């Protein structure tokens, strides 16, 4: 894993960031190493490993290239895992082997322009037609946009509440599936983010994931374990920030102020890592883990941002030059505090769970 990340993925990272280029080679290498099916059971062509193994994989990739990590993370976690949990046997047989091998890249389409933290208010419509559904609407901030072969899409098939939402498997080659604006972002430049526009997309009933009206539950459960992946991504960025700071201080004169900062960075990283691994371990053991996953996502991503800022500070002017890993980590880290539930939403989840 480390060999792959450091040997194949890391050398691409600066270029992928500079050119805003999809890291084709990284995704291909991850597929060949079986990483795209890490959570998928062996009978469907995956590796059948648990959430902890998954978190460690994402951490290793993120340490090399955070763009590559989020592509693999979204594919493996929220883009595939819901099918393991809520899919029918037919759905699993049809889609999972292709997702496990990387023949298809997965994606997750929940957020809409007016529906971010308030996911239950989403507007995309799923109208019954014959034996299936017709989907209409626009999703925004979709990771793997334009690259995914299969989108898990959440749309309203019933009432104006959470219980009116259903989940659907929408192949990218279905008629009416369009890519809208692809965003220029502050960081994660190798990972395409943009709008998914569905215009009269016909989806057969067999592509509904879970029961009608179960979509919100599917989404929330997907995001619970998604948060473990994002925690892993944060740990990778934070570890890279610590390693690069260490190398920098070893190569130049340093004083006690530098040493204290490095000690604080490493301590904070260790606490974040243990929180994330604990949440992953609970998840793998089949125990409740919602609160721990939210705490891990909150603490790991805040840690990644702070450590990226600290490392850039240690590097000084030279760290701010484009192409420097310090500059890249700083820009990449910020997204993690925002996506898969902003850190404000994580605080809501944690507080609600404590006060339950």
């Amino acid at each position: 894993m480390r060999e792959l990340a450091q040997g194949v993925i890391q050398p691409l990272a600066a270029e992928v960031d500079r050119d805003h280029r999809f890291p084709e080679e990284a995704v291909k290498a991850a597929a060949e190493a079986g990483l795209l099916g890490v959570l998928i059971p062996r009978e469907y062509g995956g590796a059948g490993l648990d959430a902890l193994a998954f978190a460690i994989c994402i951490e290793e990739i993120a340490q090399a290239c955070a763009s590559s990590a989020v592509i693999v993370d979204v594919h493996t976690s929220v883009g595939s895992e819901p099918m393991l949990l809520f899919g029918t046997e037919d759905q699993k047989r049809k889609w999972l082997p292709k997702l496990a091998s990387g023949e298809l890249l997965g994606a997750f389409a929940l957020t809409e322009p007016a529906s971010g933290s308030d996911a239950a208010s989403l507007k995309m419509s799923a109208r019954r037609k014959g034996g299936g559904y017709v989907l209409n609407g626009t999703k925004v901030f979709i990771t793997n946009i334009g690259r995914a072969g299969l989108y898990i899409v959440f749309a309203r098939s019933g009432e104006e509440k959470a219980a009116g939402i259903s989940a659907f498997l929408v192949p990218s080659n279905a008629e009416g599936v369009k890519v809208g604006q692809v965003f220029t972002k502050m960081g994660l430049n190798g990972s395409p983010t943009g709008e998914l526009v569905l215009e009269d997309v016909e989806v057969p009933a067999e592509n509904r994931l879970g029961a009608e009206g179960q979509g919100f539950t599917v989404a929330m459960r997907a995001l619970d374990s998604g948060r473990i992946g994002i925690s892993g991504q944060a740990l990778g960025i934070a570890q890279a920030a610590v390693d690069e700071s260490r190398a920098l201080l070893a190569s130049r004169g340093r004083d006690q102020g530098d040493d204290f900062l490095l000690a604080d960075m490493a301590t904070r990283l260790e606490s974040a890592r243990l929180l994330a691994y604990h949440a992953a371990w609970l998840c793998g053991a089949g125990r409740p883990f919602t609160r721990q996953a939210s705490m891990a996502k909150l603490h790991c991503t805040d840690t990644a941002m702070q450590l990226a800022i600290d490392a850039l500070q240690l590097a000084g002017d030279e760290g701010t030059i484009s192409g420097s890993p310090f500059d890249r980590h700083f820009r990449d880290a910020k997204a993690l505090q925002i996506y898969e539930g902003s850190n404000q939403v994580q605080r809501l989840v944690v507080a609600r769970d404590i006060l339950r």
Partner: protein
Amino acid sequence: MDFEFSEEQIAIRDTVRELVQDRVAPRAAEIDAKAEYPKDIEKLFADNGILGIPFPEQYGGISGSSVTICMAVEEIAKACASSSLILAVQALGSYPILVAGSEEQKKRLCPPLASGEKVAAYALSETGSGSDAAAMKTVAKRHGNEYVLNGSKQFITGGSVAGTLVVFAQTDPGADHRGISAFVLERESSPWKAPKLEHKLGIRGSPTAELVFEDVKVPVANRLGEEGAGFKIALAVLDRSRPGIGAQALGIAEGAFDYALNYVKERKQFGQPISSFQGIQFMLADIATQIEAARHLVYRAATKVDTKAPDLTKIAAMAKLFASDMAMKVTTDCVQLLGGYGYISDYPVERMMRDAKITQIYEGTNQIQRVVIARALLK
């Protein structure tokens, strides 16, 4: 203690504010995206007297007060940090002349800067000499009535576009920081080269240049102060310019907060504006408090520059440290308040977050500010 600005200062600020909102704000995103020096904005500032703010009237300027410089830098930085450096560096590059120049030098060198006909820059850092300025390698050898400069400088803001450049060089290479002298180079008569501009995280419209000096001749009349006085001049200048970086950080934070505050009032989730949620309200309260605290420290330090207060060094370092750390934190939180929209370049706050980072680094890293403050405390 007086917390009020003079009528004249307020008039200057209002003029700058209006000009910036009309002419600079609409250009800011493009300046960042293209990483292009906004020559048009330099001209706008020159034509409207803004580049004359750092100079007293007797040298062709309109103020010379640090408080006024800070007010103008803050206003510009609210919209565009790159453009605010045009004024901040005009002040930085002119301070050595105003602080250490003879009357003849001030009368000769300042008017073309005050009119905006030329812009100034300040060249201290080298590849092997950042926080440790005394380790510099650029040398100036005297031959009769002139010096010959050889060496290079790194991370020089505006060094490629300046017409007047203050350069620090060793005149007595064995003498450590006591061998450093300060020189004013005028581009026509003492041309330097700028072979490389850096591509950066932020302040992308402000050129950061590597400068090379190959047998550059400078008349003795352009040496500031005595031989060997350069290091003292460099430090005295940084004391005076640090409140300006504080003001820049303050402006960046205020620009981001203005935007985020409007956004949270308009953005609706769960059937109400997100500003109605206490978690968001607490963030807003913390941000506004941090900005207010930084503002007072910045203007206190600027006042100390203007009154030549004895504890100027310490307070100026505190203002730069606190305001720049504040700007980093506040802009990071403002991106957070906009969520996914904050992270994309269709909205201005991610640019402001990238711009904020450098304020913790340049004109003495915040580690150096802490060293300066601790030294003053333990003296």
